[in-house]
């Protein structure tokens, strides 16, 4: 039995469907991210776990206990909000102690716990400050300490880094992950930032239009996207429509050029149309004789992206990106040149329709 079980959850707001047939099992101590674009239902799902929304159908179980209709103040979950939500009338220490006062912890125990929490977020000297005297990153760290002060069974984070600048985001996400690992707490993290989700999570749930598109480790989500949406949402991906030539040997054709895939054509027939995806970094310029997966192309554009150089090539009517690591001695083709690019058969992903 998983620690958190979300079973067949549906949530409608009037006629609008926010979450549909959502099922997820989360193990104790796991860090799971809900990733998707705005309006995909990820925050609604988190709010149903927190108790701020009630599912139209389905159940939420924590440790086997059905908490679907339990009020949020009795759920034993800590929550961190995008807008920090620190109480402006209380000091940092007052904010952290708030939950402890609610459960009537003795004053000495409260002081000790507040001090532990301040140490955990490396803000021991900030206890007497008010929220308006802190930067955004500091406020969010206090919000995290406040959520953890009661040692909740689960930590819910609703886009906690969205309001911060890029550098703080990167350092704070590492800090959040380190604290989560140190405490061994189960965490559900909502984000629309794929890089954030890939870097921080044990598993990622990619959502689109209220449904789960794919659940997997960051490695699986990035390298083996199962749907066109996941493929396009997570990282940059080249997609094209291909015709099945021979399903038994996984042979495909795009614009008259044959491509070899490794798998994904089970149940397909000759002549079927499928969507294929190839990551830009899986393409190379042809350097030695190869028979399969060689695509004649024309160089259309070259863009420097710092550590990576992105080359746009035209293959028939398709436009593909090809990424190559930048180095000062890189021999780049010229725009307008005709060339040949290639990729291995396992780089050709056949997406689920």
């Amino acid at each position, binding site marked *: 039995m998983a620690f958190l079980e979300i079973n067949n959850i549906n949530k409608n707001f009037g006629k609008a469907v926010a979450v549909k047939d959502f099922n997820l099992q989360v193990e104790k101590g796991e860090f799971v991210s809900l990733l998707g674009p705005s309006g995909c239902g990820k925050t609604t799902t988190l709010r149903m776990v927190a108790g701020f929304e009630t599912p139209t159908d389905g159940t939420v179980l924590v440790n086997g206990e059905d908490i679907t209709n339990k009020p949020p103040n009795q759920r034993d979950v800590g929550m961190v909000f995008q807008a920090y*939500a620190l109480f402006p*009338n209380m000091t940092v220490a007052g904010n952290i102690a708030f939950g402890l006062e609610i*459960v009537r912890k003795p004053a000495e125990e409260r002081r000790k716990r507040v001090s532990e929490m301040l140490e955990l977020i490396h803000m021991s000297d900030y206890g007497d400050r008010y929220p*308006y005297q802190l930067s955004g990153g500091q406020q969010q760290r206090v919000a995290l300490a406040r959520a953890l002060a009661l040692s909740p069974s689960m930590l819910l984070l609703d886009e906690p880094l969205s309001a911060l600048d890029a550098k703080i985001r990167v350092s704070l996400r590492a800090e959040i992950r380190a604290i989560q690992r140190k405490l061994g707490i189960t965490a559900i993290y909502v984000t629309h930032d794929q890089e954030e989700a890939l870097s921080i999570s044990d598993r990622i749930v990619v959502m689109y239009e209220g449904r789960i598109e794919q659940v997997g480790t960051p490695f699986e989500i990035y390298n083996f996207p199962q749907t066109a949406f996941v493929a396009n949402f997570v990282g940059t991906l080249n997609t094209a429509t291909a015709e099945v030539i021979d399903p038994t040997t996984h042979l495909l054709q795009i614009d008259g050029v044959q491509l070899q895939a490794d798998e994904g054509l089970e149940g397909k027939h000759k002549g079927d149309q499928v969507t294929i995806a190839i990551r830009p970094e899986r393409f190379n310029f042809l350097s030695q004789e190869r028979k399969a997966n060689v695509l004649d192309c024309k160089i259309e554009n070259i863009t420097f992206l710092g550590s990576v150089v992105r080359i746009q090539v035209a293959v028939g009517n398709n436009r593909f990106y090809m990424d190559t690591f930048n180095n000062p001695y890189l021999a780049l083709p010229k725009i307008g040149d005709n060339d040949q690019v290639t990729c291995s058969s396992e780089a050709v992903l056949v997406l689920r329709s």
Partner: protein
Amino acid sequence: MKASARVRRFPFWSWVWFFLGVLYFVMPLYALLDFSLRMERDVIGLKAYASAFADKEFLQTFGYSVFLAAMTIIVSIILIVPTAYWIRLRLPEARRIVEFITLLPFVIPAIILVFGLIRVYSSPISIPFTEFSLMAPLTNSRFGTNILMVGGYMVLGLPYMYRSIDTGMRTVDVRTLTEAAQSLGANWFTIIRRVILPNVRTALLSGAMLIFAIVVGEVILATYLGVSAFGPYLLLLGRARAFEPAALSFATFLLTWVAMGIIQLVTGGKGEATAGAH
């Protein structure tokens, strides 16, 4: 260069308009103060103030009006804070209707309100078509009249109190603060007492001050409900004497401003309206 020149230029017309505005508000006050100090011929003194404060009826009526104002403020807070809070939190679609209702005292004169109150509450309230009486006439007792006075004043102060509180709540992210407190185990009472009220304190005090000013100077309700409040006392005094009403008016005005100054001092610098700031 042009921008810096613009900044350095003396804003002559701004200062002219500002000065005219100050004159408009300060001149009548100055005239009132000056008049109140000239009770004795060719002498500037506080005789009018001494005479006004020595009157027992002044203390009695002023004390009673302060009591009514305090009760009105307490009842208004109890009624309006949860209402405004709930509308912000759960019923945003009802805000326009409630705002419209709160504006009604501006268009319905106090005289209509008081006659309505007298019409309804001067006879026993019975269950229709039965002899069973639910409530004795409120106008028959001092306690009942006090209830009517507080109720009436609450209606008169509603636009000010509701708008003050609603504006105060607009400056804090009420919904997120509520959810944060809930996730930390707080119940509704604790959320309102420890999170919402302290964060709308300035707005609350502003509303309270306005209600205080309205109640202390109010004449119509007090006159028609036959109570000895400060407003009717001041009116009667004005008919009989010249300098004392001016002294009392100025003293009341001063009291209000001193109270507002204290509020600013007490509530300043605690970082209200920063919730959710990025």
